[in-house]
């Protein structure tokens, strides 16, 4: 789906950071559970694209960041990788999200 556009963005954002004469080897991403990204198809699109773009060795290293919520009933802060996990202290569904939508390039390796 949109992972091909995302893979293109990743390469375009990484490109100016690659020193002259070096090959892109790794792109390190941080992806939250609410980023709306399918890791598997992103890897697939990225692998195809780097071949066409002349970085045949480049790989994605994806760090899945958990989502952080704060319970609105008891104030407890908790981390979870699945949004179906509600407050572990009082099981309330009411909460605000503190983080979870991250989708960034953390580093590259050349």
């Amino acid at each position: 789906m949109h992972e091909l556009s995302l893979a293109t963005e990743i390469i375009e954002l990484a490109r100016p950071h690659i020193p002259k004469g070096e090959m892109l080897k790794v792109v390190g991403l941080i992806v939250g559970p609410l980023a709306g990204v399918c890791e598997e198809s992103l890897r697939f699109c990225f692998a195809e694209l780097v071949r066409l773009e002349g970085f045949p060795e480049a790989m994605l290293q994806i760090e899945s960041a958990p989502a952080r919520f704060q319970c609105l009933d008891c104030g407890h802060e908790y981390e979870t990788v699945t949004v179906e996990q509600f407050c572990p202290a009082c099981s309330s569904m009411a909460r605000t999200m503190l983080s979870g939508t991250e989708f960034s390039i953390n580093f590259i390796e050349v």
Partner: protein
Amino acid sequence: MCDTCGCLSPSETGHHHHHHDHKHTHEHKQIAIGESVMARNDEYAEKNRAHFAEKRLFVINLISSPGSGKTAVLEVLARHFGSRMAVIEGDIQTSRDADRVTAAGSAAHQIETQGACHLDAHSVGHALAHLDLETVKLIIIENVGNLVCPSTYDLGENEKMAILSLPEGDDKVLKYPALFHRVKTLLINKMDLSPYLQFDVDRAEAECRSLNPEVQSFRVSATTGVGMDALFAYLEDRIGE
């Protein structure tokens, strides 16, 4: 995964040309970046947002799965708002949705996405040039029917609005959290079908609040017009601001 450098094996990536010798020292040099993957889209989105603010337009990015009733809701809104509303249609191919909105009384411009599953801020910026905004106070962008891809792309809108219709099932909110976390308004559409379907509206609304406590929900039917007065009032309020 390789313990030394964290790179992935061919079977993990589907990449078959990886001749990485793991017995040797890695000579990878790491360069810190720390940039959002959406950075370029977000730049265009900020331009759009500044443009909307300058023209005093209230702009909604309308997202739902195919067939949940985006265009049907827009037809109802077009009959109410007429020339005060304009619509940008993201359609993969036909101009059918734009034609329906025009026939109902509001201007519409279509972006043919040529296969893309979402609109991006850049194409919306171009579409603006095609709309006569003289009388317009409200712009609604009908995104491509899809619950996943459009949610990541900020178009510069004031708010995202999602439609969830009864035939889709009441479990969809937590299955597509990236969208439902980002919406300000949730329309539960096709309420006229409730006698025939098992759809727990309270559950869907509660799950949406668990992702975003501020979400406002409207239970509507585009077919019968049920619940539309509350939506009109909400939008009149936004336009008035």
